[in-house]
């Protein structure tokens, strides 16, 4: 059994999903964690994908930054863990 972290991807893997949601390439955008203030490019964030949806976590403090869930063809987006995304 591999550790959960072995299954972690990074923000590169959700470049397509992010274009779907934001309409533009976002992996080079900068995200600021609302919990610890860490500033990183989206490509460097920790990403877990499953059939249920996608969770993006801070690489510094592990806080949840973004979640994406697909229901009936609609993508529900929660960005409350981010102080900013630019």
């Amino acid at each position, binding site marked *: 059994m*591999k550790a959960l*972290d*072995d*299954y*972690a*991807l*990074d*923000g*590169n*893997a959700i*470049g*397509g999903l992010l*274009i*779907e949601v934001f*309409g*533009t*390439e976002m*992996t*080079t955008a900068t995200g600021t964690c609302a919990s610890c203030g860490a500033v990183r*490019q*989206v*490509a*460097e964030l920790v990403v877990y994908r499953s059939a249920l949806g996608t969770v993006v976590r801070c690489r510094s403090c592990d806080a949840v930054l973004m979640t994406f869930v697909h229901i009936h063809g609609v993508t529900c987006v929660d960005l409350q863990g981010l102080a900013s995304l630019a």
Partner: protein
Amino acid sequence: MARTAVRGRLTWQTATVGSVTDETPQVRTLSLEVADWPGHRAGQHVDVRLTADDGYQAERAYSIASAPGEPLAITVERLDDGEVSPYLTEELQPGDFLEVRGPIGGYFVWEPDFGGPLMLLAGGSGVVPLRAMLRYQGLVGSSVPVRLLYSSRSWEDVIYRAELDSLSDGVEVTYALTRSQPPGWTGYARRVDQPMLAEVAWPATQQPLAYVCGPTSFVEAVASGLVALGYPAGRVRTERFGATGQ
């Protein structure tokens, strides 16, 4: 303006499988023909979507194996418990169709004017986007010196072996074979570790630019190792494939 808006959107397109090339017993390269392919950058990927008869869909990202200017190709490693890769590597035939969207990604990309000696580090199928960079470097006649450190389970698992053997003098390739080695092997016979990085990687004083791609555990170990050698974190670009069994 309307045309610009439409071109900027990422839409699923039908790709026709052109040729199929076996790279290793587990790995296959598919050339894909997509109408109006806009071109791609070295290091980008495409999303591939499969739809089952009952409507269930599975989506995966695959690195583009070809250089900018070359026809689109992806290289896929078969994961025995995978939902998508067994189909791509065992079932799909030339002339079959596939849904793709892309190109995707602006972070793990290389352009000739990025400068620096180039330090490429691959774990298993993590070599795929780095191969696109190597081909591009050759095609544009870039004088940037390149080193590739490529960790693979065995000699048989080395992807693009013939091509890597025939690279120009400006490219040095070092292999680390982690599980088994051919008779008479004198190269590294272990996972990439700190002493190996210190021996193979460009010294940080030369201001190298590093690209690290492979299973997550490989990327974590290598990227932190490079930073420990003095590479600024901003000069180490990473792409993690998750747990791919490397």
